[in-house]
């Protein structure tokens, strides 16, 4: 089956407030004409208020962290306890417990952290969608001092969206079909 081609407009702005305005403008336009499929914002720094503009992002990274850490704790404890059990007949215990909790807590603690860190990194890669190739319309200006607005549009009505992007003071607009 042939994949449907996607049409993108990419506007570059020199101010975050202008980018905020253009997103509101595009949302209004979409309500009237149903032309916008998706909006993405590119910026050189983090803007925590971006969720107010684009809507909430579902990124439960902390769940990965939590379950990763628990898995790490269990695995590390099983490793040390299992090793002690395996050596039960080989290593004299001298009346001490085969699985001594205070000693094993140290390795369990390290295992918890190690797996917690690894699972957090895995979650980061999943939810940020990386690694990936750079998009055709990506401009290095958005890693310097400008804000980029990417809009996926219905190809036939891209003029309407372009006009909205220009109206809010776009420094540059790129158009790509892929």
């Amino acid at each position: 089956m042939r994949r449907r081609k996607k049409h993108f407009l990419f506007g570059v702005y020199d101010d975050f407030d202008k980018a905020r305005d253009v997103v509101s403008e595009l949302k209004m336009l979409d309500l009237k004409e149903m032309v916008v499929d998706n909006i993405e914002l590119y910026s050189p720094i983090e803007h925590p208020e971006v969720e107010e503009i684009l809507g909430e992002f579902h990124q439960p990274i902390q769940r990965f962290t939590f379950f990763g850490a628990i898995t790490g704790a269990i695995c590390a404890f099983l490793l040390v306890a299992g090793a002690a059990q395996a050596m039960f007949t080989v290593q004299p215990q001298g009346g001490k417990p085969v699985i001594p909790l205070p000693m094993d807590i140290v390795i369990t603690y390290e295992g918890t952290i190690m797996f917690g860190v690894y699972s957090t990194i895995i979650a980061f890669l999943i939810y940020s969608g990386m690694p990936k190739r750079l998009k055709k319309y990506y401009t290095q200006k958005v890693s310097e001092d400008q804000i980029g607005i990417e809009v996926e549009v219905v190809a036939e009505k891209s003029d309407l969206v372009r006009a909205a992007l220009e109206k809010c003071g776009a420094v540059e607009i790129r158009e790509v079909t892929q």
Partner: protein
Amino acid sequence: MSDYSMKDIEWAKINRDVLASLESPRKEFWIVLGVCLVLVLCGVAAEAYQYNEGLGVALMDRPHFWQLYISNFVFWIGMSHSGTLLSAILLLTQADWRKPIYRFAEAMTLFSILTAAIFPVIHLGRVWNMYWVLPYPNERTIWPNFRSPLLWDAAAITTYATSSILFLYVGMIPDLAICRDNAKGWRKKLYTALSIGWMGRASEWLAFRKTYVLLACFLVPLAVSVHSIVASDFAMSIMPDWHITSFPPYFVAGALYSGCAAIITLFVLLRYVFKFEAYMTTEIMDKTAKLTFAIAMVWNYLNLSEYASIWYSNDMFEKEVLMEKFFGPYHWVVWGMLLCATVAPFAMAFKKVRHNMWAMFWLSLVLQLGMWLERFQIVSPPLASNHEPWTWAVVWPGLVQLTITVASFGWFTMLFLIFCKVFPSVSMYEVKEMVFHRRKASSRTEMEDLNKVKDEMIKQEEGLS
């Protein structure tokens, strides 16, 4: 000094300045790198000699089986602490002055660990048996002894090294993308691979921030555990002067102290070599110095309380070792430590010293010397007068140990300088964030001032009418 300094730097200029540091450092950079390389070669020659002849050439004999290599191991592990730990704590407490300096501090952590990790291998003598610490059973199905603090060390350091590398790498991804966008040739390929397609999308930033904070939450307890475990190498034994309950917090405070001093040294060095005067300001040095001073006082308190607890316990073995330390053959090490690490930090109480970069540079070297002497006086003097009087002997480290010790400083500095030449040592996106927020806060203050003036004028007009 204004709280809003650095607010007027243009974002494009931040990129230009930091990227320029990857291209054209001062010529002193190459001189220092050359000296470090020579030191490393000397160290390699000394290790090769020791490898062929055995540990005897390092003068490691009964009772001094633990000597300079272990002191160096503890010193470098300690130095690794401040970078990641302080970066993580300052990130969680949202202290924005960390932003221009945290990157090189985290890199310092990484290279300190890499330097520290070499010493147990050298100390072992039989380098080829190093893999025995890995957690797998041998041919007789005997596992490594997980009850030994030495194996805890291996686990803790592996966890700390990998977590610190990931923390450093994740924090660097947006900057690697900037480098990718501006580089050519082999650098372009390297940065493209390492930036894994970062484009600064909103979803990337949100995932990035969450991840970074979560990693910081892990690294704080991890860093504390690592040096506590290193302290356990000593405290879990029954040696007088080692078997001390307060050793773990004492080691952690000492680690933070020496790490902070190292941050100051590298701060001044990078500021000069890479021309970062606009970013590594006296305001930041002032705060770093105050933090170092506070940590120095914590370390001093723990050090003195350790002496006090030995004195009040009236344990004859502990007391004798303590007296030997102060008045025996190693006395100059202990007095030197007290001079460099207890008396010298009081210089940081003066603003004039804190604001003088080169004064801070030399002072930080003195503090590090003090902390290195502290590591040595923990390891060697107690062994000279242990529980077995027939083994008592005063042995000073030989030329091989000293050469490898000096080479480790060359190795660390060489790796660090290469890192700073290949990767941005100042975080561009975080400095931009700092500038952005300071500019916003400044304009807010200006607006408030204007409104106050306006209100007063209105009141005056109302009074007149």
